[in-house]
């Protein structure tokens, strides 16, 4: 792991009018590190994710990001052009519902190739080869490259969404319940794939999930949120094996044992 963080978040607070989304969030994320944000619905974890990924403007606080040129920039002070460029090159966002992250009416190949074309690739053959390579890496059969994701199963769609995000070699990927809404067996496959890709590519990731097993398997560190506040944070196995806060103890003890 590198010695310099990729992201420095300080006092990040988001209010919707007078209603609290999340408050006073502080953390640093290092290259190759996976941070899980857990908590129940309404705990503010999705608000935090959307604010971190610059989809929402914070009420106060800042998030400094180390750009590819090594300069530190507050992501909320980037121009819209810079921010959008960042989000489709150096960042990824994996939505819970693949339809939110894919173009459902264009082929799988074009879904993967879009980011390449957006950054100026103009060679059809090379774009297609790259798309094929990525479909292989996410275990989508090569002969599905010209099919629309509408004809894909939920698990395939999610894997396609991941390929679409990773094709530009992002350094930071946000994931919102990436395995939510999938069958258990499909979840396992996806988790394994994610774990493998994150490891191979040295990605940093921020994963929102309410599933502690997902957090255990994917993340190095986790933050537990409740009522908009981070109530407990630390090494993932420390938080799960030795939960301190009443709410965390409740969460951990609520896992069904199989």
């Amino acid at each position, binding site marked *: 792991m590198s010695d310099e963080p990729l992201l420095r978040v300080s006092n990040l607070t988001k209010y919707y009018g007078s209603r609290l989304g999340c408050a006073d969030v502080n953390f640093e994320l290092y290259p190759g590190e996976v941070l899980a944000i857990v908590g129940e619905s309404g705990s503010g974890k999705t608000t935090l994710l959307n604010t971190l990924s610059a989809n929402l403007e914070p009420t106060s606080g800042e998030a400094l990001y180390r750009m590819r040129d090594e300069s530190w920039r507050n992501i909320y002070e980037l121009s*819209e*052009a810079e921010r*959008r460029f960042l989000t489709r090159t150096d960042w990824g966002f994996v939505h819970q519902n693949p339809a939110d992250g894919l*173009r459902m*009416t*264009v*082929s799988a*190949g*074009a879904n993967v*190739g*879009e*980011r*390449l*074309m*957006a*950054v100026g690739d*103009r*060679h*059809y*053959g090379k*774009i*297609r080869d790259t798309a094929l390579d990525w479909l292989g890496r996410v275990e989508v059969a090569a002969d599905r*490259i*010209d099919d629309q994701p509408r004809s894909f199963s939920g698990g395939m769609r999610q894997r396609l969404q991941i390929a679409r995000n990773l094709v530009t070699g992002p350094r930071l990927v946000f994931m919102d319940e990436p395995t939510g809404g999938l069958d258990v067996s499909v979840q396992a496959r996806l988790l394994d794939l994610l774990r493998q890709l994150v490891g191979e590519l040295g990605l940093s990731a921020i994963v929102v999930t309410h599933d502690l097993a997902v957090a255990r398997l994917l993340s190095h560190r986790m933050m537990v949120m409740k009522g908009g506040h981070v109530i407990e944070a630390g090494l993932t196995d420390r938080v799960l094996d030795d939960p301190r806060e009443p709410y965390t103890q409740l969460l951990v003890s609520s896992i069904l044992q199989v």
Partner: protein
Amino acid sequence: MNAVANYNFAYLDEQTKRMIRRAILKAVAIPGYQVPFSSREMPMPYGWGTGGVQVTASIIGPDDVLKVIDQGADDTTNAVSIRAFFAKVAQVQTTTHTAEASIIQTRHRIPERKLEAGQILVYQVPIPEPLRFLEPRETETRKMHALEEYGLMHVKLYEDIARHGRIATTYAYPVKVEGRYVMDPSPTPKFDNPKMHRSEALQLFGAGREHRIYAVPPHTDVVSLDFEDHPFTIQHFEQPCALCGAEQVYLDEVILDDRGGHMYVCSDTDHCEERREAGHVGVLGMKEAAE
């Protein structure tokens, strides 16, 4: 103004024309950029060229000579009606000859004869937004134009190649104007795209239903989008015009009977007539002349 005392010159009131002229000036200043304007109800349905008509009405003067074409022809309903409309409300001289016209309003074609400095080509545009096909949100497409995010345009071309082995888009083929804005050239065949490039004439585009005006000033670069390994090409016709023998022109297929008989003739009727008057004859033209 005796015969039509109830109409203001060129139908629209002066305030409206001023508003549209401002939009046109802005469009000329920012080639390829879609300028919103307050489109008026015209005495014809949307889809009949209300955008083009409003642009023409705002730029036309008593000394102008107007030509109107629809799919290249001067004698189709749409062309005849619009020509008659301006003859009535602006009492301007009309023509079918490209060379004589100062303003040419068009639907779906650019005349074969090279346009000259001083001429204005007014396009009727149904859907001005080239990105709409893949991104239906207008708020988003405006942002994409503002930030020059045009990757999506290539997604469309990619899909063409993936599906058909080549770029199968044959009309409304997207172009980049002066290296900046991506523009829908209206549903003209891609055959006409090269004519837009550095044209000496001013090209104005009016979309009435969509409330947009855009422009390509004379001598502006207009480049059709493509891939390095799938470069832009125009349609190619195997045979010359059956009536006038012209090559390197855009041809329409005309069905002659119910036994599969057909011929290919110039879509630009004025061009075809002028050539025949000058003595050029095609395969079927000879027969016609002989009858």
